């Protein structure tokens, strides 16, 4: 996420142009006239529906396999509907992967990463923007941003060692590392947004006697809400779905997150497809359900994030 002009301060016009275009992504769009002379082209619609099938097919297979009985799941026809409908796969997967524990670990890692990223990044961004005149803060900005060019694999080995040595080879270690890898991008988003908040707004709060701490929590943090949503969505998607980092950092198998637990089905039980797919479905479902409820936010947030970043 990094196509930034490293020098902060894009013009207000650019700023609104970007926001304007992201806004319209879920409302139809200003550019292309949506409702017009004709009611819409059926041929394009049909082609797109066919493409959508390729998106849905793996998901359909996952769902239908998950509800099959053991024998039906190995009959070689992945696309058939479950007959009879069975939840045996779920029952067995629930116990095999110790789903409640895995879910709790994934939840802790995800919630921790989202909260820590939003708080640390908005804190740092606020300090940086308000003290831009001071070298320490200005350099901190570029320092934090530099990490956008450091992918996890590059520093993974020392991190595995260090987390092991300091007792952080657990979900807490993953939260810290995941937050740090999200930090540069999040600071970039927050600082871009903070620059658009007029100083006068803050000064009036100060005149009313609010301290910096109070100003931040009562005035700035609420104003940052849309950006916090974007930052949070990225942190959520990363922390919930990531395999590489937890698999390398967390040493106790029982503390593993849901994606890592699925490797159970790669070795043993490899022929109980219904169990494996039930387990995959349970691991995927929370993110998909969250997405279905927050579609608008996710689409806008991701667009805005990627463009600002």
């Amino acid at each position, binding site marked *: 996420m990094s196509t930034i002009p490293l020098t902060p301060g894009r013009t207000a016009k650019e700023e609104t142009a970007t926001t304007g275009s992201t806004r319209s992504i879920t409302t139809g769009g200003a550019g292309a006239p949506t409702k017009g002379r004709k009611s819409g082209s059926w041929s394009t619609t049909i082609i797109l529906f066919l493409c959508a099938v390729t998106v849905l097919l793996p998901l359909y297979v996952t769902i239908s396999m998950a509800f099959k009985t053991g024998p039906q799941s190995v009959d070689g026809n992945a696309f058939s509907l479950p007959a009879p409908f069975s939840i045996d796969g779920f029952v067995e997967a629930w116990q095999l992967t110790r789903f409640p524990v895995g879910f709790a670990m994934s939840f802790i890692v995800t919630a921790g990463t989202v909260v820590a990223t939003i708080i640390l990044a908005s804190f740092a961004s606020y300090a940086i923007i308000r003290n831009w005149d001071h070298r320490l803060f200005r350099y901190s900005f570029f320092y934090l941003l530099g990490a956008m060019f450091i992918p996890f694999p590059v520093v993974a080995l020392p991190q595995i060692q260090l987390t092991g040595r300091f007792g952080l080879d657990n979900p807490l270690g993953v939260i810290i590392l995941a937050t740090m890898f999200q930090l540069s991008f999040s600071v970039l988003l927050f600082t871009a947004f903070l620059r658009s908040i007029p100083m006068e707004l803050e000064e009036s709060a100060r005149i009313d006697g609010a301290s910096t701490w109070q100003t931040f929590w009562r005035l700035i943090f609420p104003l940052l809400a849309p950006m916090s949503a974007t930052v949070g969505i990225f942190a959520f998607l990363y922390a919930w779905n990531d395999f590489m980092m937890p698999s390398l950092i967390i040493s106790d198998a029982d503390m593993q997150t849901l994606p890592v637990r699925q490797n159970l*089905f790669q070795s043993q039980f490899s022929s109980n497809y219904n169990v494996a797919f039930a387990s995959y479905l349970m691991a995927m479902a929370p993110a998909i359900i969250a997405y279905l409820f927050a579609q608008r936010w996710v689409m806008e947030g*991701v667009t805005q994030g990627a463009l600002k970043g």
Partner: protein
Amino acid sequence: MSATRSIVTGGGGAKTPRSRKKVEPIYYLFLFPAVILFTLAITVPGIIGIFFSFTDSIGIGEWEFIGFTNYIAAFSDPAILTSFLFTFGFALVTVILVNVIAFLLAVGLTAKIRFKMGLRAIFVIPMVVSGIIIAYVFAFLFQNSLPAAGSALGIPFLETSIIANPDLAWVGIVIVTAWQSIPGTLLIYIAGILSIPGDVYEAASIDGANKRQQLLRITLPLVAGYVVINVILGFKNYLNAYDIIIGLTNGGPGTSTRSIAMTIIRGFQTGDYAYQMATATLFFIITIIIAVLQLSVTRGRSNI
């Protein structure tokens, strides 16, 4: 007022020697948690890693300085060279495929169509699905369903699993990676296309430009900046490919689909700590070169 001004316009090159007013201490409290944690979690491990790349450490126990031996060895190690070649080739193919498909889908999804919002919602779903899990699902499809379909339809080419074929396994990885990363790319293209004012198209159609001409002469040039964003973001992500490859082929058959990230991690697990830190450092240098290139490209294009 002048302070506000310089904040708004940023210090972009402007030296700001004035106003050495004292920083309110609380701002350090805001800044330091992030900076300190960041230093401990990323900078320090990075420096340690580079340091050990000049030693013969196996991760624990004693070690000695051996200079550039690891680097020299890495340059002539076929395993490392193959993984670099594979990763770059894979990233290149994927970035092209993903961008072409995502751009065409974005054109379709911004055209006058029915069920526009529903279709967009569907196309974004893969973005929220875990890479490793969807790779497991695709592995099943490639191993079981595709060969079954191949023999049912009498297509010998499909009868064996493509991910069991050293020459074709990468195709499977490209497909799954594309499946998962098209949504993000697509959303950026949709935003790009929507930012084009409608009257441009009206003027063009009055002048008699057909749809294809409008697409090639108007849409494509006007979203060029977004293409740059997508290509750069995508390429960087694909260079770090790990999850999907683990789920799909686990680097196999043999080592034919072993990415750089996998090579580094595998080396650690087999005791090649210092050696693979040299690989990681080389990889880091390449990432930096790409980052510099990307900055010079995006600097030249400030039209987004």
